[in-house]
């Protein structure tokens, strides 16, 4: 027992007075605690600790010896914790949201392993994701539930987003919950990646060689295929998301749509063929197309960079998009990487992600209910704020997926460090959030916008270190501050059942 319930309410949480022999230093923000009510157990998180005194005179003549200090503890000076309750359990262990308050003086203790198990290891497909900050018990996330809604991992660089994402994605693939389509901006989710210390670590393709296919827009020895997108598979709407990079105005968008209307699927090939034409020639073509000559010139100029992309080809070969869609349909996850000269190319990342996602959107919308039942796709995007900013709201396929595609079994998994730049409407659709270290106040505010008890969770967030995460939302019964499980030998062993050699390191480094 660490203390007893002093006061509080369902909405504001509980004040717990600590016993005199319990040092506040033995407790931390984010610790799990249990209030033993007469009927129910109340599970909560410590979100604040306070030092208090019943008599201010003590500060004018402070205790001089350790014994004096000890003698005053618990009466003149004392400590309290603020405990936010999230769920309560009846005597049969059934969890429910907080609907009542425990009695005064109910005893309060730190949660034990059995409590963590009671709260987190329930139905569905529980997956070990981490441990409470001060305990070794496993925290489980319900992967079924996780995949049903949009999810997000937020955190600054170096906070551990990638490792956490790899763990979650491994869980989704291994348990065959969903097919993942990962737009892997920094090439971390394919065969291997380098960790913060520069050490090479296995990644999804190594863990699940049969269940993961790696595509790349450029030559990459780790990739299963190089992406080829025929010109005919590109729509003007696919380019719209890259408008900022291409300096592409709304007028250019309209012009592109007109060109497509006139030239059909060959519109892009036609547009590229106009490069190098004289003004007179362009004026003539514009007239025949019924578009403004200046606008056409601008559109040609703006799309010149697209003609330089190797993976966009004038070919009638099958588009890689179809292959990707077929893999996803058959339950195989796809990692799209960006190597060679396209490494760190925002244009290519946005363009490819947009094209493929738009096709998935169209495909799923046209599927029957029975087809959809068998198919669940999670689209993973990094640097999500660039896709989901308020500016791009109207023409943004990812915004549409986030808002409307849950019923078509397509959800988004956002990985980002600037949530404040994401459209709040999209953020409101995020079911489960993993929030690692964050520094910027506006980012912190946006992560907790519309979240019940957000101000209390913010306090916990501020106490997190690297590789620690606050997890809350749809797939867990209550928020939890956790240490992300080790992405090391134990995890690799757990995943090795899926590896042909039985050891991901052997896959990676050879025998």
């Amino acid at each position, binding site marked *: 027992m660490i203390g007893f319930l002093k006061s509080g309410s369902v909405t504001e949480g509980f004040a717990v007075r600590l016993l005199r022999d319990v040092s506040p230093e033995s407790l931390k923000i984010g610790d799990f605690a249990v209030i033993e009510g007469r009927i129910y157990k109340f599970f909560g998180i410590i979100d604040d600790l306070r030092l208090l005194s019943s008599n201010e005179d003590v500060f004018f003549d402070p205790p001089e010896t350790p014994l004096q200090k*000890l003698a005053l503890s618990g009466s003149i000076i004392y400590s309290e914790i603020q405990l936010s309750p999230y769920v309560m359990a009846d005597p049969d262990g059934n969890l429910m949201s907080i609907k009542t308050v425990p009695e005064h003086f109910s005893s309060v203790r730190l949660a034990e392993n059995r409590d963590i198990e009671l709260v987190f290891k329930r139905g569905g497909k529980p997956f070990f994701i981490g441990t409470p900050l001060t305990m070794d018990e496993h925290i489980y996330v319900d992967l079924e539930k996780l995949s049903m809604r949009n999810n997000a991992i937020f955190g600054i660089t170096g906070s551990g987003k990638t490792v956490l994402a790899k763990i979650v994605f491994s869980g989704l693939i291994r348990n065959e919950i969903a097919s993942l389509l990962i737009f892997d901006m920094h090439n971390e989710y394919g065969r291997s990646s380098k960790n913060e210390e520069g050490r090479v670590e296995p990644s999804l393709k190594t863990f699940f060689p049969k269940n993961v296919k790696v595509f790349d827009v450029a030559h990459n020895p780790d990739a299963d295929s190089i992406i080829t997108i025929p010109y005919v598979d590109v729509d003007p709407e696919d380019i719209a998301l890259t408008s900022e990079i291409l300096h592409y105005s709304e007028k250019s968008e309209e012009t592109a749509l007109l060109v497509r209307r006139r030239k059909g699927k060959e519109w892009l090939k036609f547009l590229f063929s106009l490069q190098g034409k004289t003004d007179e020639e362009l004026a003539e073509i514009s007239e025949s197309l019924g578009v403004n000559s200046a606008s056409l010139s601008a559109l040609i100029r703006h799309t010149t960079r697209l003609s330089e992309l190797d993976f966009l080809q004038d070919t009638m070969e099958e588009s890689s998009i179809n292959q990707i869609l077929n893999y996803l349909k058959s339950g195989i996850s796809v990692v799209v990487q960006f190597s060679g000269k396209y490494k760190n190319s925002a244009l290519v990342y946005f363009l490819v992600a947009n094209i493929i996602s738009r096709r998935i959107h169209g495909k799923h919308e046209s599927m029957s209910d029975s087809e959809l039942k068998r198919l669940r796709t999670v689209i993973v995007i990094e640097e999500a704020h660039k896709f989901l900013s308020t500016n791009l709201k109207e023409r943004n396929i990812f915004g549409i997926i986030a808002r409307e595609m849950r019923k078509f079994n397509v959800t988004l998994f956002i990985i980002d460090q600037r949530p404040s730049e994401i459209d709040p409407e999209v953020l409101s659709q995020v079911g489960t959030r993993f929030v690692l270290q964050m520094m910027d106040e506006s980012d912190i505010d946006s992560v907790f916008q519309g979240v019940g008890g957000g101000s209390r969770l913010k306090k916990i967030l501020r106490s997190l270190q690297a590789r620690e995460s606050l997890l809350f939302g749809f797939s867990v019964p209550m928020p939890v501050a956790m240490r992300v499980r080790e992405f090391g030998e134990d995890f690799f062993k757990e995943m090795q059942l899926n590896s042909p050699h039985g050891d991901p390191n052997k896959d990676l480094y050879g025998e």
Partner: protein
Amino acid sequence: MKSIGEILLLRPSFIAAEGKRDFIPPIGSLLKNNSKPLRYLIVVDQFVESRIPGRTPAPYGLDYGDIESEQPQSTFLMRWMYQLVPVCELNGTKYEAPTGVPDIHTLLYWVEDAEFTEVLSSSSFMDFLFRIDETMLPQRNEVIMRLLRKFIVSVPQINRDKELLRILTRLSIIFRNDYSTLKQFIKSLEVKI
């Protein structure tokens, strides 16, 4: 068991016993009677008065040691008294508030070591100590301090810290609104460690 005095004065709010000449229990001593109900009383003051009402001692100009040999009547005419305040009664194993005053001529005895430790170890006894009305007995805190000091010293060294902490903790609750008094107690008791 040898008596240490006899109650001879019983007035409203004032109980006094006569002790032996040249030895009366120190202020802060814990005494008890030897009959039912068993009462615990604390010595709160000492005084010497004439046995003959209205008589005042005459000056002899002698050192105290010489008075007895040269003017023995002067000491025969005096009595050595101490004032007592009932703290509580023992009812079975339970300490309760005093139900009344002891009878006149009640003989008083020391509370011996083991019993003394047992009584002082009781938090309810401690509470009864502080129920003594300070407005009626301004020296109450000083008296209690002496009693507690005596107790602390009587506790074996090995348990002394623990007992002191227990007492101080109790005091810190009793005096949570009177920090300066609490500090006096703490300093007074700590010195004895």
